[in-house]
């Protein structure tokens, strides 16, 4: 440490002032963002969500296959051979116009046995038939569970009727005029878009906001918090950390989005087939796709900052990593509650519950995103964003204050303010001559 000269040529003394809260937050955000981004753990964080997608895809595919094999949708035929043939022919003809409403019909091989009893056969749980049709074309007899009988009674009667007539049943020629959408279909489509958008936003916040829980653990463990607290206001530390993690989240979303786009480019048709959703023709939101996507990004940021501020505060109160882990489950449950609240109100625009969901800061971004999908009105988004921004600031302020009081063991300011407030009230009371109110806490 020899030859140390802190005032050596090369710089002037520090200017007399302080960093603004914004500048201080930027210093923290920059450090945290780079520290997370260039850590090895971040790579695992990026590829982590891909595992459930792959596993889910495989499980879904296998499960679908098993389900298709396990669920009986075939109706067995135990009629005479000509009647069976006529039934198969009629079912084939009808399914071309009625599709899945018509069951697959198949002869029951065991029915050729003269002593075959369909009821006994079904009761013995033999074969893999939803039901068995016996009797004649004029009087078909359906054997199966009550549920299956109720399900197939109509279609079997129709098939038997056509098979018995020997010719296709008469159909009237229907002419058609189409419109792009009806009020009912547009509303239904927009609700689907709102649900999908809320779900995506919920999944992303659940996946990403949880990281914030343990965000102050390193500083507390390494005692760096003392240096930070001595240099800059604690709310700037909180804000910086939140924005750093939001930045990290956007990096994650960008990477996953690019991977998703890559998969889509390679296997567009396969994805549509497997998920049974045509993403190319998703119903448009009320405000249009460009504005909706913009609002989705902004509302995601707000949801992240609001939840993050809460999580950061909760995590900051924890004394150990174990406590943080213990807290993660109730925190996830709380996220779910907020999501359910917002999701429940999609179909109830203008209701008191929807208004509550919009006003309650944690559910507000979710409820407003659904609004963007279902209603064209724009000014309400400006109001909601202002309110959400205010809520973020208040939560960060409250969280940092709590942290200072509970963890840094700082206090007194509140007491001083309270004393000042009491003094002010006392002065007012003495001026007005009114009796002075007493604080019940005293």
């Amino acid at each position, binding site marked *: 440490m020899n030859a*140390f*000269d802190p005032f050596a040529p090369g710089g002037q003394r*520090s200017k007399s*002032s302080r960093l603004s809260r914004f500048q201080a937050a930027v210093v923290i955000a920059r450090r945290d963002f780079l520290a997370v981004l260039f850590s090895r753990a971040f790579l695992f964080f990026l590829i982590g969500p891909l595992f459930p997608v792959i596993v889910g895809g495989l499980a879904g595919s296998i499960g679908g296959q098993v389900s298709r094999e396990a669920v009986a949708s075939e109706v067995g035929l135990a009629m005479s051979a000509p009647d069976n043939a006529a039934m198969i022919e009629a079912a084939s003809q009808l399914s071309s116009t009625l599709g899945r409403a018509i069951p697959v019909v198949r002869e029951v091989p065991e029915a050729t046995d003269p002593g075959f009893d369909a009821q006994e056969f079904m009761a013995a749980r033999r074969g893999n038939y939803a039901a068995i049709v016996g009797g004649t074309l004029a009087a078909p007899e359906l054997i199966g569970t009550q549920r299956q009988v109720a399900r197939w009674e109509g279609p079997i009667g129709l098939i038997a009727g056509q098979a018995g007539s020997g010719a296709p049943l008469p159909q009237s020629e229907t002419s058609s005029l189409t419109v792009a959408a009806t009020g009912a279909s547009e509303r239904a489509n927009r609700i689907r878009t709102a649900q999908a958008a809320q779900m995506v936003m919920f999944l992303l916040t659940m996946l990403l906001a949880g990281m914030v829980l343990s965000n102050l653990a390193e500083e507390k463990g*390494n005692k760096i918090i003392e240096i930070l607290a001595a240099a800059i206001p604690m709310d700037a530390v909180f804000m910086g950390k939140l924005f750093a993690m939001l930045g990290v989240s956007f990096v994650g979303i960008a990477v996953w989005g690019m991977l998703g786009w890559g998969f889509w480019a390679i296997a567009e048709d396969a994805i549509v087939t497997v998920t049974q959703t045509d993403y190319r023709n998703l119903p448009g939101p009320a405000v249009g796709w460009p504005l909706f996507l913009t609002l989705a990004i902004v509302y995601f940021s707000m949801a992240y900052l609001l939840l993050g501020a809460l999580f950061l505060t909760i995590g900051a109160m924890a004394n150990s990593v174990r406590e943080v882990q213990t807290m993660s489950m109730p925190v996830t449950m709380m996220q779910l509650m907020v999501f359910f609240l917002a999701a429940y109100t999609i179909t109830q625009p203008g209701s008191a519950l929807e208004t509550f969901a919009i006003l309650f800061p944690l559910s507000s971004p979710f409820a407003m995103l659904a609004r963007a999908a279902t209603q064209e009105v724009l000014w309400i988004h400006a109001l909601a964003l202002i309110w959400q921004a205010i809520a973020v600031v208040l939560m960060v302020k409250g969280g940092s204050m709590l942290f200072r009081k509970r963890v840094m*063991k700082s206090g007194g300011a509140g007491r001083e303010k309270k004393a000042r407030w009491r003094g002010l009230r006392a002065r007012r009371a003495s001026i007005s001559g009114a009796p002075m109110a007493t604080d019940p806490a005293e």
Partner: protein
Amino acid sequence: MDMALGDRMAAGNRPGDAGWDETALIPPEPRPLAIEAKGLVKSFEGTRAVDGIDLSVPQGAIYGVLGPNGAGKTTTLRMLLGIIDPDEGVRRVFGHDRPHDIGRLIGYLPEERGLYPSMKAIEAIAFMGALRGLPLAEGRRRGLELLESHDLGHAANRTIRQLSKGMAQTVQLLGTLVHRPRLVVFDEPFSGLDAINQGKLERMIRSLAEQGTTVIFSTHVIHHAERLCEGVAIIAGGRVPYAGSVEAARDRIPAQVRLETRARDGGWTAALPADTRREGDFFYFTLPETGVEPLLRRLIEGEAGILSLSIERAGLHDAFVAIAGEAAARQLEMDAQEHRR
């Protein structure tokens, strides 16, 4: 810290003394205060950790906060820095009652050292500077200079977890100073340092003060405070029984005289003060208020045969015992032993 007139008189600047400086008797202009605290009180869960502390630290001084562990030193420093707010009382740093408002002027090295383990040494210094408003590029440039001047240039791009404990401590110290603060607060800075690094740190503190930087540090090792500090606050049980110059603290204990004579007995012994005790060939007694000259005259007249006479001023340790009490002094000694181990 300014010596009061009385302090200087007590320190030996008396008319007729060799080196008598008449101008020294003219009270100097009071130096502006870097830190001013009045009636600071802080309680934790009903226990008063700090109980009405007053402090005044002039700009450019090296000031020690001396007391045993648990006396309230760290809590006091944390209040002065704005890390925590006092329950009662006021604190002003360079005239501001919110220390964060002048964050760029302050450097702080906490007792429990902490750095981000995955950060490179140079980045850690630049980051600590950035927290105090120093642009990152400038922080890196100054950081490299500082590391090189401390023979740690080779470690600039190593992560903190790759450094030895001593090297990491030096990095944090440089990070505390990289923005060239006007006030540096060290909480137990010598804790955990070996003798060589303690010496280096002492030189660094002196160098900072020579450049006009105010340095305030807490310690439970008396000789650090005695060697370095112009002013000291003795703190025990959350109170400050003494705050002032080190010299004035020492002068609270009268100087001791050690006398060696050729003659063992004689009429001259009646001239010795009442508190005189004899240990072997030596007589020990408190320096009389009238000074040593009248006594010397009588000893010579009584043919005591003076072989040697020395006046020993009390040390800061004696002053601490007198001011803070035996129990606090014992605790301080135990802390110091623990520190040495």
